[in-house]
């Protein structure tokens, strides 16, 4: 489905690093040891085309949310850059920065803290509309009604406070707020993980519909693999602040080319008892992001690790026209691929 779209890079990350310094210990400082920091992002690169949905998956603490926040510039990256339409977003100031903010919006994970509890829905949406001058003042009430309709909330919702809504409804208010400024890119950070399963589908399907209707480009950050598979054109798998594999959704899910991706997929509960397996795909715990392992970040848990993995960090290399993985075992997962090699990809 992606191939029909003109592949035009809208937003891209280039070797993005981000670390959060920890409270320093005077003794360590005196001893001249390196300062402690959580290495949240360790060189993340990807490109996102207009109209595309990129799913970002990974365990808790792998830097998914940090990446999402760097993309909308809630955080500034330490090294590397995020480009929007070719422009480094760190260079944007004043009106240009506000313009970027308008065009790249974020939806937050927690529907209970992402809305100002003292503002009515009308004020929340109206503020976004008037600050960015989306509509003349007189047309704002009509636009608010339109937005509420877009996210399937009754029009009398406008005069209520956030605490009068359920989690799913609040999340839809959050979507309406983001859509109020008519953005090109929507970054959804764990959009539904705080919601009941029954409500999750509702909100996700709404997002899918809106994306088609409004031609949005979406970054969907989640840890629920089935959800990501359902919604994304492409998927990026993150591990300890680095993308270890990125590729078209079906290709990646059916034939993962990185041992970590395979481990992640195997760890997902399988409904079909015939397909359940006891083979351990990854052992041990996630290493501390304060002191990530040398060489390949996954080497402490990888069942396939060999000497090179401890000496040299693998780069993302091509596994197909749009499929990349960062593993020294280039052949990994190749056997699982049912002859899709010859499919032609339109440029």
């Amino acid at each position: 489905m992606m191939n029909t779209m003109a592949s035009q890079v809208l937003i891209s990350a280039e070797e993005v690093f981000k670390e959060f310094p920890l409270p320093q210990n005077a003794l360590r400082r005196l001893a001249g040891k390196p300062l402690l920091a959580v290495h949240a992002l360790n060189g993340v690169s990807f490109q996102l085309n207009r109209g595309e949905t990129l799913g970002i998956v990974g365990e808790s603490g792998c830097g998914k949310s940090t990446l999402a926040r760097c993309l909308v510039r809630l955080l500034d990256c330490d090294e590397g850059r995020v480009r929007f339409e070719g422009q480094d977003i760190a260079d944007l100031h004043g009106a240009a920065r506000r313009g970027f903010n308008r065009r790249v919006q974020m939806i937050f994970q927690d529907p209970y803290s992402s809305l100002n509890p003292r503002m009515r829905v009308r004020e929340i949406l109206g503020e976004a509309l008037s600050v960015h001058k989306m509509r003349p003042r007189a047309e704002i009430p009509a636009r608010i009604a339109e937005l509420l309709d877009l996210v399937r909330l009754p029009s009398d919702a406008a005069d209520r406070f956030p605490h009068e809504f359920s989690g799913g409804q609040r999340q839809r208010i959050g979507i309406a707020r983001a859509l109020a400024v008519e953005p090109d890119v929507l970054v959804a950070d764990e959009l539904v993980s705080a919601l009941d399963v029954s409500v999750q589908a509702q909100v996700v399907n709404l997002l899918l519909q809106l994306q088609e209707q409004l031609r949005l480009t979406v970054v969907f950050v989640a840890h629920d693999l089935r959800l990501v598979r359902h919604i994304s054109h492409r998927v990026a798998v993150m591990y300890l602040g680095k993308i270890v594999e990125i590729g078209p959704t079906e290709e990646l899910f059916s034939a993962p080319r990185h041992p970590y991706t395979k481990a992640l997929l195997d760890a997902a509960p399988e409904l079909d008892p015939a397909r359940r397996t006891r083979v351990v795909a990854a052992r041990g715990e996630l290493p501390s992001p304060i002191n990530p392992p040398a060489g390949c970040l996954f080497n402490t848990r990888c069942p396939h690790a060999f000497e090179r993995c401890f000496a040299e960090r693998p780069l993302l290399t091509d596994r197909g026209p749009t499929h990349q993985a960062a593993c020294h075992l280039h052949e990994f997962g190749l056997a699982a691929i049912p002859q899709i090699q010859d499919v032609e990809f339109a440029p």
Partner: protein
Amino acid sequence: MTIALETTATPKRRWRIAKLPGTLVLGGVILPASLVIAFFPNLFAPYDPTVFDYNALLAPPSAAHLMGTDSFGRDVLSRVLYAYTIDLQIAVFATLGPFILGTILGALVGYAGGFAEALLGRVVDAIITFPFLVLVIAIVAVLGPGLMNMYIAVGVVGWVFYARLVAAEVKVQKRLDYADAGRAMGYTHFRIIFRHLLPNSITPAIVYLMTDMALAILLGSSLGYLGLGAQPPAAEWGVQIADGKNYMTTAWWISVFPGIAIVVTGLGFSLLGDGLAELLRTKK
């Protein structure tokens, strides 16, 4: 058998007195009454508060003088009522300035964090190291007695308490996602601080303001008693209590009735503060 089912219609926004906190209702009765007296003491006072009546010096409470008279024959009731004007003025002027200044500074500091926050912390430490009353007396002693100088003295000290309260609250609020949502929207810091964070952070400061007004009345009276605040012959509770101190054993009414007025008014502010705290708690 019929069972009356409670209809769960749309929640009504109508406020019922019965649902309001009792403390709020009581405070809400005492304070407006005090304000009415403060604005129109002439409607209630039977005598002029500064006129001497040499035929009724130190007269005990009677039908003619409900609270008796003082050593100059002035009607104590009238003086207590006229004192409302000055004492409520003290309550407002001695607290509103610090409240506004402290709230704005606290919001800015709490949002900025880092060095500004550390600096505020040290300033607060430095100021609260001195006993409040002693510091105010020292400042008034330098500037000279009088109400205006008292306001200045209280203002210099009082803002830190508001700033500390608001800064701590803003610091918590700014970590919540709605603040990030504002930033992601490209809102200015000014808008995020004053439109989003402050309304969610100001409740403790408002509650403290009420308590502080009660304390300000006490402080005003204390300074009046010491001769550093309102100056005689102005009717002010502290001044009145000081007037009566030499007659405590023979004419107790001169000091006791202003004292009761202080207690009742202070209580009114405190009750209102408590009630507001209950009412303004954010609904989750």
